[in-house]
């Protein structure tokens, strides 16, 4: 009987050593190491088998005919696939759970720690929150103190590790100049990735809030000062804020602000935005993939993203916008909208309107108040304008390729030229309305 190869047990030892290293030295970048150096496992394996064959040959023993067994070939193919996958994943910045730092998420246990810290504070105090990971809830109250209830969650393999991590990260409230700083100090822990901390805070009503973090939601309620939140990844919900609100996020699932007396400014990337009852100016600058909703804004709204630039003087009604549509009703102009690809429906707007879209239909229905100047352009899409019977205007509507429809009768001249058509005419003495599409139907309707 032929002596069996020693590579089987060696592979077993290698796997054992890898898992042991990961368990004892948790910060080891094993994923990266394996993804980079796995080809040397193949080389070492081949060399071992080569040596085995040569040794057996020199002892004149019968040689295996293929050099590798079927099982080995299967294992090698698997190693190549997994290794290439890990290499590609690592290069593209993906960290897979079973190998990286999150192994604790699978094998560890969660330990909870709670504590409460308070500090007297009165009047318009400036409170700064520094919490690396975890949710922060801030509520204004009549108490003359800053009170923080902390709920720290530590993931660890045993209680001793967890206790140590808890002691390394004491929460503190300190005075720094005219500010009060609340720190959870999570970055002090040696395995920072395994701790997160939810804090529940009450502050005096007049407080000004400043929040810093890299991951975790912020909820702020009933605060008369301004709110400034900067985070890597957060959902932000602001309710009843007396001052300005400024939110700067690299990623977020939602930013919601309701009842804000000051200006609201939102920057960065995210998904949904919901703003309601804002007394100040609203500025949104960044890229948002979800639904944006604006309701009852008393001052100008300016929204600027990669594909869209929208300015509205006042939003007594609502604007709802997502990647493909923009719907607005009851708006006060001047309104200016430049966008790449959206279907636009505007309903009940006053003052002047200027719309430009590359691709998408435009449907306009001005409000009952005297008509403003309208200028709507689409590269490709239909333009519908619905006017009350009593409206006075000076229309010029053209399509380079498509039909023109007219409900206003003989006052408007209809003309076709080649593949295109146009409407032209004056009804009474009113503002200039220009509609223009390169491809699509232009219609003038009577409501």
């Amino acid at each position: 009987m032929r002596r069996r190869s020693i590579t089987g047990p060696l592979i077993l030892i290698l796997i054992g050593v890898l898992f042991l290293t990961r368990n004892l030295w948790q910060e080891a970048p094993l994923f990266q190491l394996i993804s980079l150096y796995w080809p040397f496992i193949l080389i070492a394996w081949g060399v071992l088998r080569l040596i085995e064959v040569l040794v057996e040959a020199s002892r004149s023993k019968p040689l295996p005919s293929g050099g590798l067994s079927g099982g080995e070939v299967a294992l090698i193919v698997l190693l190549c696939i997994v290794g290439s996958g890990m290499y590609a994943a690592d290069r593209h910045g993906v960290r897979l759970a079973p190998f990286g730092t999150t192994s604790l998420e699978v094998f560890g246990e969660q330990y909870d720690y709670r504590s409460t810290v308070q500090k007297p504070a009165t009047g318009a105090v400036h409170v700064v929150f520094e919490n690396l990971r975890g949710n922060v809830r801030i509520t204004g109250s009549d108490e003359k103190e800053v009170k923080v209830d902390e709920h720290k969650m530590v993931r660890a393999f045993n209680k001793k590790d967890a206790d140590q991590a808890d002691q390394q990260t004491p929460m503190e409230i300190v005075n720094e100049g005219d500010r009060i700083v609340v720190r959870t100090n999570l970055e002090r822990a040696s395995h920072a990735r395994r701790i997160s901390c939810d804090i529940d805070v009450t502050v005096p009503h007049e407080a000004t809030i400043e929040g810093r973090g890299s991951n975790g939601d912020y909820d702020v309620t009933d605060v008369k000062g301004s709110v400034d939140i900067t985070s890597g990844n957060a959902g932000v919900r602001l309710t009843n804020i007396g001052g300005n609100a400024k939110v700067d996020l690299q990623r977020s699932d939602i930013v919601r602000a309701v009842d804000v007396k000051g200006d609201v400014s939102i920057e960065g990337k995210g998904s949904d935005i919901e703003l309601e009852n804002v007394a100040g100016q609203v500025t949104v600058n960044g890229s948002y993939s979800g639904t944006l909703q604006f309701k009852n804004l008393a001052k100008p709204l300016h929204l600027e993203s990669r594909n869209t630039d929208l300015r509205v003087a006042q939003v007594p009604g609502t604007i709802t916008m997502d990647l493909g549509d923009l719907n607005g009703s009851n708006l006060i102009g001047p309104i200016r909208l430049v966008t790449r690809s959206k279907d636009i429906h505007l309903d009940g707007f006053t003052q002047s309107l200027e719309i430009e879209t590359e691709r998408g239909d435009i449907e306009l229905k001005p409000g009952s108040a005297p008509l403003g100047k309208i200028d709507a352009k689409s590269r490709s899409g239909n333009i519908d304008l619905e006017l009350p019977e009593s409206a006075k205007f000076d229309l010029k509507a053209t399509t380079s390729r498509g039909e023109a429809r007219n409900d206003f009768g003989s006052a408007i001249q209809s003309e076709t030229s080649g593949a295109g058509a146009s409407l032209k005419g004056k009804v009474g003495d009113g503002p200039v309305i220009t509609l223009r599409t390169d491809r699509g139907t232009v219609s003038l309707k009577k409501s």
Partner: protein
Amino acid sequence: MTTSNELIRAVRGPIILITIGTLFALDHFTRWGFQQTWPVILIVIGLLTLAGRATRTTSGPTPGGAI
């Protein structure tokens, strides 16, 4: 008694394995990507097969077994 033909057939697997490992290592650490260097595997297999044939005519016990 092992013949040189048996020896060549026995080392074929390990040598292909080393080749593949080397190509992936080159892919990771040099500018020679695997998508460029993979034909080397075919060449190595071809060379090994040729060497096997060349030695088989002298004392090859199994006829026709190329790969």
